[in-house]
């Protein structure tokens, strides 16, 4: 009933959400979900979703095949050369293999 897949958790700035979604579709992901972050910190300093000066980071969660995951990682590794953010890959199990 359960099949193994890769889960990407991608933290990126607001302006990158839409390009990342486009990229995911092209990489072969059939779905993804985006959640808004509240605050955080990293190599580029600390941020907070205040509504005034900062627009905060978003968490894009995408579950898909190994190939899709690799294609996305290649794109992201390039992207992160210029822009803040991180990606973490992990193993998950899902139902309905044809959906992922």
């Amino acid at each position, binding site marked *: 009933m359960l099949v193994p897949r890769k889960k990407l958790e991608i933290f990126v700035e607001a302006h990158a959400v839409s390009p990342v979604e486009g990229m995911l579709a092209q990489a072969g992901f059939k779905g993804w979900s985006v959640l808004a972050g509240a605050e955080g910190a990293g190599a580029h300093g600390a941020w907070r979703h*205040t509504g005034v000066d900062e627009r*905060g980071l978003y968490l894009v969660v995408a579950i898909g095949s190994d190939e899709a995951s690799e294609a996305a990682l290649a794109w992201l590794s390039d992207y992160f050369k210029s822009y803040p953010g991180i990606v973490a890959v992990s193993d998950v199990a899902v139902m309905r293999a044809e959906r992922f």
Partner: protein
Amino acid sequence: MTEILASAGAAAMANLLAPAVLFFGLGAFAGWAKSDLNIPDQVAKTLALYLMLCIGFKGGVEARASGLSAELISAGGLGLALSFLAPFAAYAALRALSKLDRLTAAATAAHYGSVSVVTFAAGSEYLRSMGVEFGGYMAAVLAMMETPAILAALIIAGARAREAGTRFKPELFREVMLNGAAVVLIGSFVIGVITGERGMARLDVFVGPLFQGALCLFLLDMGLVASRRLAEASRLSAGLVGFAMGWPLLSGIVALLGASALGLSEGDATLMAVLAASASYIAAPAAMRVALPKADAGVYLSLALGITFPFNLLIGIPIYHALARVLVG
């Protein structure tokens, strides 16, 4: 002259005691004292859009009433020129005064060429409280001055920009020209021009008495944000801090001289100085995050929000007005 100085001093004092400024102080205190006070982000964002809507709409209605006159063209031309040229001067000053890298200096210069809507709002309220008139078209000038500085900064950053952002070019253009705040500001101005007094009759409470209160609430939040930024500003060099307070003064004076040469009224000249002196904290940071991601956002936000914004709000505005009375009035 002494008379003017005395009355300027009194006006500066009165400005510090205006409710909106006091709410800014309250927010700054809460931020400094590490209170858990915060205006939720969705509400703060809506307040910002609402302020844009009011400023644009009221400006549009007034501009229609007084006709889109020659003054708009001269003030607009001056604004465009100031906004486009300022980053070059600001960049040179920043490089001379500090050890900022090229990209961070360019991004910071973009902020100082562009404008702050809340500073404009505070300036307008100040003039209103002093009984000084100004043209509704100044809202349009405000809108015009948002973008050119960003383009100038990209030119300054030059080759570097290319390297970073090729993939994101179209987003960048959208980000700059069509950022939500700008669309609401310009759109509301146009709606104000179209509907005129008829529209104002329906929205007067919404854009009038309510605006004053919303400005207080928003400045409370700005106080929180600014004091957090100021806390981070400790790592800024004396040169940068000097820039953040000296630039608005210089830039305001240049704007006043230009306004005086063009024969703008006392109120319009003051607002022109306020615009020139103010530093963007919405449009410019958003654009710089996309276009110059290697620039240090901690630097430009700390300067613009932590130092220049309070400086203008607390003492800059009355100074620009006092100078305008001398130079223009």
